[in-house]
């Protein structure tokens, strides 16, 4: 760990804005909210810049805070009585179809239907390429919980993908 490393806030924003925004968007399904979360995460980073020791520390810190802020936002939405899952189910795929590949849109659409702990584990696993241990550290959850969320999430996705395929075949 190099103590010589001096964090440059602007450079960190440049490097990680896409990662932070993607995590927030895939967790909340709301572009405006994700942008707001990303801004808050970076401003919090600015307040804690003195404690960041290395580029890896900055990356892990940003991932952890982005996931925490997204979970907080989802909790607030639920408290306010907005069922974001239903909204995401209906809109998520449509939002992505504008800018991503059909495969991306399909994956996003399926992912949006999962409960948030499973979605969080899968996003960190497949967007960020983290191992279950790293996911457990990022989400501050027990490793067994993370592994269970990954397995259940994949099982659910598989089931949903198959049922959609059957619906598509029936429709044609």
């Amino acid at each position, binding site marked *: 760990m190099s103590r010589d490393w001096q964090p440059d*806030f*602007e450079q960190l*924003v*440049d490097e990680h*804005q*896409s*990662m*932070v*925004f*993607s995590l927030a*968007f*895939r967790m909340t399904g709301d*572009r405006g909210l994700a*942008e707001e979360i*990303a*801004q808050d995460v*970076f*401003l919090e980073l*600015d307040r804690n810049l003195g404690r960041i020791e290395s580029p890896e520390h900055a990356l892990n810190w940003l991932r952890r805070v982005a996931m925490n802020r997204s979970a907080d936002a989802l909790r607030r939405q639920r408290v306010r009585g907005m069922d974001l899952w239903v909204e995401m189910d209906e809109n998520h795929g449509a939002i992505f179809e504008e*800018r*991503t*590949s059909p*495969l*991306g849109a*399909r*994956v*996003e659409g399926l*992912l949006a239907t999962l409960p948030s702990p499973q979605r969080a584990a*899968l*996003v960190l*696993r*497949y*967007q960020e*390429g983290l*191992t*279950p241990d790293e996911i457990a550290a990022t989400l501050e959850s027990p490793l067994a919980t993370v*592994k269970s969320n*990954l*397995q259940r999430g*994949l099982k659910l*996705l*598989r089931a949903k*993908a198959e049922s959609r395929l059957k619906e598509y075949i029936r429709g044609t």
Partner: protein
Amino acid sequence: MGLEPMDDLERELRQGLLRLPAPPGLKRKIMARKRALDAEKTHRRVVFWQRLAASIVLCGAVGGGVTWHNVQEQRKGEAARQQVMMALRIAGRALDQVNAQLAARDSRQ
């Protein structure tokens, strides 16, 4: 999990969940909010130091005033004491003279 070979769904997830580009202007908005917060922080710090300086000046003035008042009181007390001592000395001298006169008269009788 993680070391097992990936199946089609996992491959699809990996390909489909690439990082999205950040919305245009996100960095600009972050930097603008940071500048605004920094300015607010600086302003708050300036106000804090101004208030601290004003408090120190006020405490100094009050303390100085109290000290000055005490010194004046002490001076007045000292002057009064000097006056009392002088009055006592004068009275003592007068009594000595009267005593001397009485003694002289007694000796003449």
